[in-house]
């Protein structure tokens, strides 16, 4: 019988307490009598540290199959564990696309064989994420992979009729469609910079916020019409926040996520044409960033999701418009949220647990995650040092890629350790797995 005793930690940032973990479950919270300790109980001195339920990422790109040079399920899992995650949802835009039950099962099994986090496949909405014909949504849902989240992420389901059918269809198994909201007729194929004075000066193809807002407006009305659930991936504008706020007030089943980078970084970083800041949707101006922070704090935006998008170095070494979209996020998500939401007073640690664990787990229908720190819950845990300042070193990442926009920045709030069902998966920035398994 394995057991761990975390002593002196502050669950959800509250009063100090001991937490006893036994056989993968939380066995006691509070003052744990000595009699409860086994002789081989591992004791973790967590005096002053914050204990949270394991983080859940609704939006991870693991690149396997197809681009194992950029990331694999193993290396992405390692990055997730280091970042405090115990479950990640692996986006479907791999090569081949996760648009069949077989493809979903393969991702699931790769995650299980690694064992650092629960890797839950996201299914494509349409075959080949081409936006025309529905993928085998039901077969993916009814397989052992138990797919519940469907997304063509990287592409918008732009055809309203296809989106309507997808929303209707997933109702049969309690699924949700996660939309990459980007009207392709308003944001052209090359759009890569917030459409603004800056894009005008730089001569970069503009990605106007209205391209996101019109799709979100359409989708919430489709969700109302179909009585289904829609989830807005990586919200980037204040206008979208207003639409989501209105829709929730109407009782429409809409949820939304925001990335750490959209909470911290602003579009003016693009002035130097550095592709490390090229992301889809693009970084937005400070006014939008402020609106996103406020919306996350007041619950309009439900969750933080990383949109972890690893790329091989050479895929970023092109002219800005030709470089790949995306940036790393798993290892730095919690420090960024700590920096912009906790230190600013917008969220307390219980709020962080809500937006980075319980809400994403609920949206994704994930059992065993995001359940808080009650006795009887699976011991999916992350231990955080809220006061530790760390200067981010991109070269030290456990991801196979290095497209880290925070390189050289100092962020306060660090993940000290992660446990998946009671087994420690990461400690002090390193995954607890033989290096050859993830590097």
């Amino acid at each position, binding site marked *: 019988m394995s057991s761990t005793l975390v002593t002196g930690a502050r669950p959800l940032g509250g009063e100090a307490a001991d937490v006893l973990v036994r056989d993968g479950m939380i066995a006691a919270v509070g003052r744990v009598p000595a009699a409860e300790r086994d002789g081989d109980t591992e004791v973790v001195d967590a005096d002053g540290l914050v204990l949270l339920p394991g983080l859940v990422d609704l939006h991870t790109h693991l690149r396997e199959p197809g681009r194992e040079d950029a990331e694999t399920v193993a290396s992405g899992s390692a990055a997730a564990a280091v970042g405090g995650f115990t479950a990640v949802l692996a986006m479907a835009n791999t090569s081949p696309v996760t648009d069949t039950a077989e493809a979903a099962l393969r991702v699931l099994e790769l995650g299980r064989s690694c064992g650092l986090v629960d890797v839950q496949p996201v299914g494509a909405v349409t075959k080949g994420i081409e936006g025309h014909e529905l993928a085998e949504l039901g077969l993916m849902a009814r397989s052992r992979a138990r797919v519940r989240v469907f997304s063509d992420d990287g592409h918008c389901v732009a055809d309203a009729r296809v989106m309507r059918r997808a929303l209707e269809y997933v109702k049969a198994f309690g699924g949700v469609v996660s939309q990459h909201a980007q009207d392709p007729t308003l944001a052209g194929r090359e759009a890569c910079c917030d*459409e*603004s*004075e*800056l*894009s*005008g*000066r*730089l*001569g*970069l193809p*503009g990605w106007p916020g209205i391209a996101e807002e019109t799709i979100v407006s359409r989708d919430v009305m489709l969700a109302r019409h179909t009585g289904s659930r829609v989830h807005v991936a990586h919200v980037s504008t204040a206008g979208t926040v207003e639409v989501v706020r209105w829709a929730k007030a109407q009782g429409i089943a809409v949820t939304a996520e925001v990335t750490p980078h959209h909470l911290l970084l602003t579009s003016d970083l693009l002035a*130097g*044409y*550095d*592709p490390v800041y090229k992301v889809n949707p693009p970084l937005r101006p400070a006014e939008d960033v402020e609106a996103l922070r406020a919306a996350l704090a007041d619950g309009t935006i439900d969750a933080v999701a990383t949109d972890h998008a690893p790329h091989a170095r*050479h*895929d970023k*070494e*092109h*002219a*800005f*418009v*030709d470089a790949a979209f995306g940036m790393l996020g798993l290892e730095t998500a919690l420090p960024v949220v700590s920096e912009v939401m906790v230190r600013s007073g917008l969220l307390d640690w219980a709020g962080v647990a809500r937006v980075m664990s319980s809400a994403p787990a609920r949206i994704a229908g994930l059992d065993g995650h995001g359940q808080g720190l009650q006795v009887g819950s699976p011991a999916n845990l992350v231990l955080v040092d809220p006061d530790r300042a760390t200067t981010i070193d991109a070269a030290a990442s456990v991801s196979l890629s290095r497209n880290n926009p925070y390189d050289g920045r100092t962020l306060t709030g660090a993940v000290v350790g992660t446990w998946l069902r009671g087994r420690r998966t990461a400690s002090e920035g390193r995954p607890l797995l033989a290096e050859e398994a993830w590097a």
Partner: protein
Amino acid sequence: MRRHLLSSADLSRAETEAVLTTAESMHDVQTREVKKIPTLRGRTIINLFFEDSTRTRSSFEIAGKWMSADTINISGKGSSTSKGESLRDTVRTIDAMGVDALVMRHAASGAAHQVARWVRCSVVNAGDGTHEHPTQALLDAYTLRRQIGGEDRSLEGKHVAIVGDLTHSRVFRSNVITLARLGARVTAVAPPTLMPSGVGPWSKAEGFETSYDLDDVLSGSHGDVDAVMMLRVQRERMSGGYFPTPREYTVGYGLTRPRLERLLDARPDVAILHPGPMNRGLEIAADAADSASSLVLDQVSAGVAVRMAVLYHLLAGADETQPTSTTATTSTEVPA
């Protein structure tokens, strides 16, 4: 000594004027029987053009050759990047051969800025996407100074209307910076669909005005116009819904014959510029392109002199603040 020319904003007013003054000396070379000076002997300049451009590439090539540099042209077609190599690897490979300058044209905005971070040699931006074309702005300023600048070659207070597809024009972006540096006033004229994003606050910051009404501008409502710079309407953009038909564009924003006549009645000494290639009958009538007021060929001629001056300032070790014509004559060994 400045190493790169990536943006018109890189050059201060003093540096801009220094380049233009040097170009006056270089212009003399064009009129000589033997068009060769030894200034860049032993230097190697690569014209790396990822995008077709007969005019600009030839201009840089001639400029380099007249200054005795070894100039080599590399086309984007068939280059390593077209075979999948990253831009960084491509330019670092060329740089490793020991070249002194890369003159680079690329379809992507910012490409020259990025390349400058990756190489040891000098980089000259010969046009990057819809961003900038700094040597075009310099040659436009050079042409204007000679035509409307008077004896002191000053554009201070002169009023230039820039007309056409501003959204996609790197010429526009560089010109508003360079002309402002030299004290000129610019009124940018285009339909709203061809105005760059956020042009309102941008124009305020850069000190230029905007208008949707060409007739209004040409009639002097924004002040008498000393020069009109017509920009090319990119035919490939016509299907993008930027304006309904070529006919409607010409009626609204073309320098048509009636407009030209009205303009010349009011300002007989007006200068007409176009960076070329021209769409005759669309943005500029043949009568305007070929009129006595047209400086189109002067611009082409000035291009060589200005590019010689730019290469001189980047590669010949000139003092960036005071490379007057005298300095140029002595230190660059311009033959008498």
